[in-house]
């Protein structure tokens, strides 16, 4: 029996009168790739932010990797994000005046201590061994996302969150990024939660849940 890495019970997030996420019960087994689909404003990113410790719920319970996120202080949450979670956003959010390898080292720095050799090897692993010294502006969209993947996995997270990481990419780059993620997941055995609008991207996962107006309306298990 695979243990759940994420367990929510009545997880709710409201912003004033607006309830972005209505009471949600969800279990994600360790190592699963879960795709989250839904229209804009359906609560996908809210769910991801809560699970990643970027936001706090209004009500309900939330355990990630055995940690009760509601009980954690701000420092505790920061430590949780640092050591447990890797995040890839739609925008690359890299420091524009640092090179690719320096951007990866920045993630190492906030986690513990920088190690250039390890950062280089992470970039080589995502196929960017020839782009180490290039700044984000000198990289294509696909390459930028691959740097983001290297940055997200450099601290060996147990949970990788993707908030539409391929939203800005063409089909070819999307496939390349998804294949890379699949390969890395097989090696590192992390759990993936991928928020997407794209049915093809969602199909890379083991399971897809559909949110509508903050409510889980449907769940679909992919055929392997």
């Amino acid at each position, binding site marked *: 029996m695979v243990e759940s890495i994420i367990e929510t019970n009545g997880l709710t997030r409201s912003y004033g009168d607006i309830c972005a996420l209505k009471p949600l019960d969800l279990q994600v087994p360790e190592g699963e790739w879960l795709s989250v689909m839904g229209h804009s404003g359906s609560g996908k990113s809210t769910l991801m932010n809560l699970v990643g410790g970027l936001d706090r719920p209004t009500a309900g319970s939330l355990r990630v990797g055995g940690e009760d996120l509601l009980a954690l202080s701000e420092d505790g949450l920061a430590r949780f994000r640092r*050591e447990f979670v890797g995040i890839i956003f739609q925008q690359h959010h890299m420091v524009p005046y640092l090179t690719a390898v320096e951007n990866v080292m920045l993630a*190492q720095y906030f*986690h*513990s*201590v920088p*190690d250039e050799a*390890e950062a280089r090897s992470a970039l080589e692993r995502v196929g960017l061994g020839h782009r180490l010294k290039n700044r984000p502006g000198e990289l294509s969209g696909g390459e930028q996302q691959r740097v983001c993947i290297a940055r997200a996995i450099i601290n*060996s997270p147990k949970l990788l969150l993707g908030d539409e990481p391929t939203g800005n990419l063409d089909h070819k780059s999307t496939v390349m990024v998804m294949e890379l993620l699949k390969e890395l997941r097989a090696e590192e055995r992390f759990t993936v939660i991928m928020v997407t609008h794209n049915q093809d991207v969602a199909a890379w996962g083991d399971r897809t849940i559909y949110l509508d107006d903050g409510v889980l309306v449907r769940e679909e298990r992919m055929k392997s």
Partner: protein
Amino acid sequence: MVAVKLIPHILSWAGIVLVLLRGFPGRRSVVTLTSISGFVIGVVGTFTLFRSFPGTVVFGIVTSALGVVFLLIWGISVASIYRSTGRGVTFLWVERLVNTSLCAGMVAAIAGVVAGAVGICRLPVTDKTVLGLSLLVPASGAVAYAVAYATLAIEKRLPKSFAVSPYGMPTAVAALLLFSSSSILRLDLFSPLSMKVMKFAHDFVHQFMESMLIPDHVFIQSYLWRYIGLLFGKEIGFWGGLFIWFTPALLVLLAGQFERLPPVAHIRQGAQRRKILAAAIRERRFRLVIPLISLLFFVAAAYQSRFPSVEYWDPKPIVVTATSSGEIIIPKKGEVDLEDGKLHKFLFNRGGKDARFFVLMGPAGQLTVDLDACAICKPDGYGQADGTVICYYCKTLIPLETVGKPGGCNPVPITFAEKDDGVHIDALTLINEWGNTVQSTSKIKEGGK
């Protein structure tokens, strides 16, 4: 007023107990008990010594104890820097000893004894009776207990990361002891240290250069004397003293900085490897806090020594003249009371030449007349405080008991006669003695010993 004077000593003592508690984790009860006992023993023992021996002897004993502590710190700091070089030197038996209750108890007891001795030296020990002694035991015990209790409570609230290394702990204890003692003129260690350095530099340079320059050496020629004067200034003592004073704390700091990180090459996962390294680096950084604070206390001690808060009794010289028979007569109860135990300065002028001298009644009730200059230093004169006179030039403290005796940095004694109408001094002798003394000491430019 006495209680106010004791505040810095009590705070220093609290700091010592705090460092000891952190330095010997898991030995709280031993450290608390032995530090309290040591403190009381230090207070009572020193008090008993004051009862049995003259003050100078007791101050000498306490100063020697402080000197031994300072030497020990030197040894420990050298060992720490040597160990940090990682030459495979391990003192396993020492490390095992450090982690025992015996070691914790001994260090706490010794620190307590010295701190107690320093504390009692701050007090004017006037009541030397058995009753005074019997009051002192519970009083010192109560102070030590209160300090230990409060410190224990503080220590429990300190974060775990506030660690004290085995080398940082003795450094901090020594720094606090020396800080505490530096406010007491007769226990100050920095001024005598500076003086010794100055004397050593002068003697060494003198002997070495004289043998090398006379006659001219092939490489070292006598024109070098022009530059050697720099080594004869009194600043050489100050800066040399500072170097010796700060080196132990600096070495311990450096040793902490050079401390090797744990081996992590065998850990496969990079993040885990870096996490272990980051934790070790953080711990190492925290361990630098105590040596850094110690360094600050060494600075404070040197500052207290250099700029003592004690106000010296330094009266303006009274102008005196000689009688037709060539005698200077100063009445015992005239403009000033010569028998009040204070230093009274006078100025005599003949033929445009000044001679400064003072009259003082020592603790034994004997009057003494001395030049306001010694045979070694520039004639900057003397001040009086805390049972001593101090040479303003080299900051040497001279116990009142020895004023009137010749030699060293003592004021040059002048022959005089004590009669009913006052003190009689031969004017010619005085002016000649002053002239000879000042002439010889002024030969050395900005010179000293």
